[in-house]
């Protein structure tokens, strides 16, 4: 699961084909001190996360930057459930919590999304209290003791943190 230090805002990737809803959710989240990236489709979400085959070299948002994905269900071509499945099938993305939102109350749809890995299904229009729930799905990072740079470098390299696997190493940067 994406981890977060207490000082860093939770970064939400919002996926919604409706411009009005994107803008409102963007504002609601920012008013609650979230960091927000918005896209208009599931396909675009995969692109910015670096999951689209043609655009693997340069994702707009690094996978570890996004802490949680909030996606509309009803979208053309790739709906929220399709996006959920694509994310859960990807080894890098599957740990990122996905919350689905919809203006329709469809119990079968809700059940299918939750069964296939969605953290929650929220009814639109969203309220501030709905968005506060998002924070609870992001695990806070274990604080790193500040005892000097050597020790911190060792912690960064520890394999059980999974950070080395999850974070792509920028080209040209050697790991000490």
């Amino acid at each position: 699961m994406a981890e977060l230090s207490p000082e860093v805002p939770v970064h939400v990737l919002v996926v919604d084909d409706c411009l009005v809803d994107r803008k409102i959710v963007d504002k609601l989240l920012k008013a609650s001190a979230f960091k927000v990236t918005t896209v208009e489709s599931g396909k675009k979400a995969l692109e910015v996360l670096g999951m689209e085959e043609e655009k693997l070299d340069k994702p707009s948002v690094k996978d570890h930057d996004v802490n949680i994905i909030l996606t509309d269900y009803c979208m053309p071509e790739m709906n929220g459930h399709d996006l959920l499945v694509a994310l859960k099938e990807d080894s890098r993305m599957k740990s990122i919590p996905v919350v689905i939102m919809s203006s329709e109350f469809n119990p079968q749809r809700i059940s299918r999304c939750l069964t296939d890995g969605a953290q929650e299904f929220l009814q639109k229009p969203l309220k501030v209290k709905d968005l506060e729930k998002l924070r609870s799905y992001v695990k806070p990072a274990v604080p790193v003791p500040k005892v000097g740079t050597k020790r911190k470098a060792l912690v960064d390299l520890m394999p059980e943190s999974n950070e080395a696997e999850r974070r792509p190493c920028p080209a040209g940067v050697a790991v000490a």
Partner: protein
Amino acid sequence: MALPGLKQQLQHLIESMVNEGILVEQQFAQVQELKTSDNPNFVSQILNDFCDGAETSITNLNKFLGEEQVEFDKLDTSIHLLKGSSSSIGAYQMRLATVDLVKAVDEKDKERSLEALKKVTHEYLRIQYKLQTIIQLENKMYDIESKPLLHDGNCAAGPSYTKDI
């Protein structure tokens, strides 16, 4: 008109829309609360986006439903956009009309779908006129609030003296 007068006019307009049953007060208030000093035009922007989107969706729906052989799957995107956006700004009657359209399209009933679309269009036009008035009032308030202060000791001249709202 001075700022307090404009704010009162806006408030009365919103109250009348709520009393008429075409606007959900709580939902619209949430949109208003999202207006910030760095985005003072938020309400008028959202309402303009809503109207543009609604008109595009209604146009598309009319086009698809006007065909001899209606491809009902093609209607889904436009209907969901209408339903979602009307719900988000609190356009209550329009949202209800869209729900009826969803049912008619799900049942692939062309006649009922056309009737339902007429109702959606009627409810849109009913609220659109009042939303345009809200936009005008918001823009007038913004014009007043963003004017540089002229009554303080330092003569206001140039952007450095522009009041942040």
